[in-house]
């Protein structure tokens, strides 16, 4: 919620008309039906029923007055493509994507990392050292890790080839109840 509000405020303040985002179709089901050019109303709302057809690679970037566009240039990439490209191009990434022993607690089915002393521990919770890595990174009290031994790029790619779950299952923020998935957040202006 903070993220959505902060995003909308920043876009309004600077008057940006186009915002590139790194969302991908394979992350989550409401992102799967998203266009590459996603049109938003003046108040940043997303109406999945008022989007434009995208035939082959012909894009229509003309905006109506007050509209803004979110553009997703890597929409068609999969998580595996991302990792293979990072390996090929030597792109620097946060070390949290690689497995290492980290202090963690298990809470509501999520494995949370205790990053610094701001982490609010519940009564009776004792951080335990586990070998974990992150498939996705958000705010640390809300992002779950996965138990993993993959400490290098090629090991991560190997793990990716065998996985059967979506990376966003580790995000508390995506759970807005029932089947709504991220769609509700997107309508409110998230990307």
């Amino acid at each position, binding site marked *: 919620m*903070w*993220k959505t509000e*902060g*995003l909308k405020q*920043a*876009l309004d303040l*600077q*008057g*940006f*008309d*186009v*915002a*590139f*985002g*790194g*969302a*991908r179709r394979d992350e989550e089901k409401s992102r799967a039906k998203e266009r*590459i*050019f996603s049109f938003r109303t003046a108040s940043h709302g997303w109406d999945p029923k008022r989007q434009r057809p995208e035939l082959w*690679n012909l*894009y229509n*970037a*003309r*905006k109506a007055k007050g509209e803004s*566009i979110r*553009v997703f*240039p*890597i929409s*068609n*990439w999969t998580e595996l*493509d*991302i*990792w*293979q*490209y*990072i*390996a*090929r*191009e030597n*792109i*620097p*990434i*946060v*070390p*949290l*994507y690689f497995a290492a022993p980290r202090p963690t607690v298990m809470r509501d089915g999520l494995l949370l*990392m205790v*990053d*610094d002393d*701001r982490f609010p521990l519940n009564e009776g919770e004792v951080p335990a050292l586990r070998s974990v890595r992150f498939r*996705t*990174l*958000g*705010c*640390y*009290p*809300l992002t779950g890790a996965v138990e993993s031994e993959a400490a290098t790029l090629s090991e991560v790619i190997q793990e990716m080839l065998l996985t059967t779950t979506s990376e966003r299952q580790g995000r508390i923020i995506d759970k807005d109840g029932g089947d709504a998935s991220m769609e509700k957040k997107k309508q409110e202006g998230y*990307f």
Partner: protein
Amino acid sequence: MIDTLTHLDRLEAESIHIMREVMADAVKPVMLYSVGKDSAVMLHLARKAFYPSPPPFPLLHVDTTWKFRAMYELRDRMAAESGME
């Protein structure tokens, strides 16, 4: 080994095409940068798309102040390296 995977070249070409297409019509564009792996790839593609100039837009990081410490370190390094705001 990974150099022979041509599907990555196709994806790269598509993303670069999209970015250049956007620039034709955009008045004031911005790139959302979350310091994650997808942002890292997107920024890398943007630098390729407009090379040798730096990408013609600033980066915007929506900082909730609750990000992992390692994320702040990489963010500051990448902004300096790419010559972007």
